């Protein structure tokens, strides 16, 4: 049997990707470029890699769980994948500290990404992101623009030193930025951006969001009932492939059922999930 029971080809196991670049793009936020051994199909926006860090013993020892990290960008030949990650603990610290040229153990791309067909060609897509929820929106924005969809980004950060990719996004569409302390863009959260003139002028045909839970709840409440709204969720994961039931979110349609974020998501329609 060379194809799985699903009829699709067997998925690849963990691969050793070569770390070809590592850049600090905001305080404690790094962009890593990971090279696959050969050109492959470009991943869908919203899918993620599950990276296994090598944590030194003095930093608390070995990781057996992978770190889910969204794919932020992809080279034209599909070989180089960019991820953007914030150092929050020993795993992310170990990943950004690897020597250039050394291998990064990666599983994936995993999960189901954003449905680009949600917005018709010529339509308008609103992309709402917060913190390290912003990265997957970049590949998404590129793909939407490629499709002929016009995009507006509303991005929330903690403060000015935290902001990244503002210029890259600006090449694709209008970017509105909020910071908690007002040190860049508008003071407050992405919700506070809604009253900006640019935002009021932009009536979206579809909404795409990724970020912290309060932000997703706001997006779900503000847009979910009016327009097709897709939310990318986060939860602590173990297997990353749907087998362990670590990463569940209640199904809005069936109180007995819970979705697995890694397998059924991470992207869900706003109306499918109870946040």
């Amino acid at each position, binding site marked *: *049997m*060379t194809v*799985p*029971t*699903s009829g*699709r080809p*067997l*998925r690849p*196991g*963990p691969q050793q990707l070569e770390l070809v670049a590592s850049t600090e793009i905001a305080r404690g936020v790094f962009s890593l470029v990971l090279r696959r051994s050969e050109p492959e199909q470009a991943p869908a926006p919203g899918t993620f890699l599950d990276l*296994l860090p090598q944590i030194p013993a003095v930093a*608390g*020892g*070995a*990781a*057996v*769980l*992978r770190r889910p990290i969204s794919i932020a960008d992809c080279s034209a030949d599909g070989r180089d994948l960019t991820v953007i990650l914030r150092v929050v603990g020993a*795993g992310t610290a170990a990943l950004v500290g690897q020597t250039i040229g050394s291998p990064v153990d990666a*599983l994936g791309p995993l999960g189901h990404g954003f449905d680009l067909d949600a917005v018709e060609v010529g339509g308008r897509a609103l992309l709402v992101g917060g913190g390290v929820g912003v990265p997957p929106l970049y590949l998404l924005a590129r793909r939407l623009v490629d499709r002929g969809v016009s995009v507006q980004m509303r991005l929330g950060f903690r403060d000015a030193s935290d902001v990244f990719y503002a210029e890259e996004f600006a090449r694709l569409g209008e970017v509105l930025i909020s910071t908690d302390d007002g040190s860049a863009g508008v003071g407050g959260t992405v919700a506070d951006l809604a009253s900006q003139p640019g935002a009021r002028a932009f009536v979206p045909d579809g909404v795409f969001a990724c970020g912290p839970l309060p932000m997703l709840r706001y997006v779900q409440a503000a847009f979910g009932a009016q327009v097709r709204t897709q939310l990318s969720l986060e*939860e*602590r*994961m*173990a*297997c*990353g*492939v*749907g*087998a*362990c*039931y*670590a*990463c*569940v*979110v209640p199904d809005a349609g069936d109180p*007995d059922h*819970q979705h697995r974020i890694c*397998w059924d998501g991470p992207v869900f329609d706003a109306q499918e999930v109870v946040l």
Partner: protein
Amino acid sequence: MSAAENPSSENPRPTNPRLAVSLPGLELANPIMPASGCFGFGAEYAEYYDLSVLGSIMIKAATLEPRRGNPVVRVAETPSGMLNAIGLQNPGLDAVMAQKLPWLAEHFPDLPIIANVAGTLTEDYVEVSRVISTAPNVAALEINISCPNVKHGGITFGTRPEVAADLTSAIVAVSQVPVYVKLSPNVTDIAEIARAVAGAGADGLTLINTLTGMRLDLRRRRPIIANGTGGLSGPAVLPIALRMVDAVTRAVDIPVIGMGGVSTARDAIEMMMAGASAVAVGTANFTDPLACPRIIDGLEPLMDQVGIPSLEQLRAEVRSDHRPAA
């Protein structure tokens, strides 16, 4: 034998006499099987490889009714290990009988399945065991006695010899297939529990289940796992599992399927050298979805290196050393 090397579906389970293991109810092509709760009901990992290369699958625990499980956060990492408090989320006995087991039977007809059984009352365990043991591809039961027993004031079945023995004999009385009881490591004397369960008629034992542990979130100043504590598994527990398998196989005569921290072929052989007749792999599946085929592929080269003609011969050798106490 990796999936790629074995594309023929006509002879999906060629038996390699060096690796074959024969246990009550279980004729295993090789000793490696995913541990319960770490492999769902197989469908997800079937996207990664042909599950018919496995010795068996210990499927996720089934309870009488569907269970939603615990609130999230359900897992936390620990050095070389993890905590979990999934809370036995499962679709319930009826769905397992109607969908999960038939799906496995359809796609992997020759693969013997070990059905993991859980509950909170003796009656639940007995009913699930009675029904699930009738499924055509269920070759054995694995009774998870680490669940809290409401009748005995919430203490787990697995920490009291007499409670464990009573549960065992009630299940043995109704099961159509051999019964393996899964022991908890959170006890002062695991050999004592093993003797009680063997005395009550269990056909085999599986061990170890998870050790109780905790991690705290420094910012929120409370446990990471919503449930407070969770079960520790992964490489961290390997030496504890080996010690307990050694102790139990010296104490009783029934076979043991060993588990706890196995992530390489080396670990699996070590587990068999400690007395296990077969080996289950849990957490390692999460680190590497191909962990089980990787371990299976690694067995023979390692056996050559360290001079093990066949696993049956290793078992005989270890068994003659592990003389149960009179």
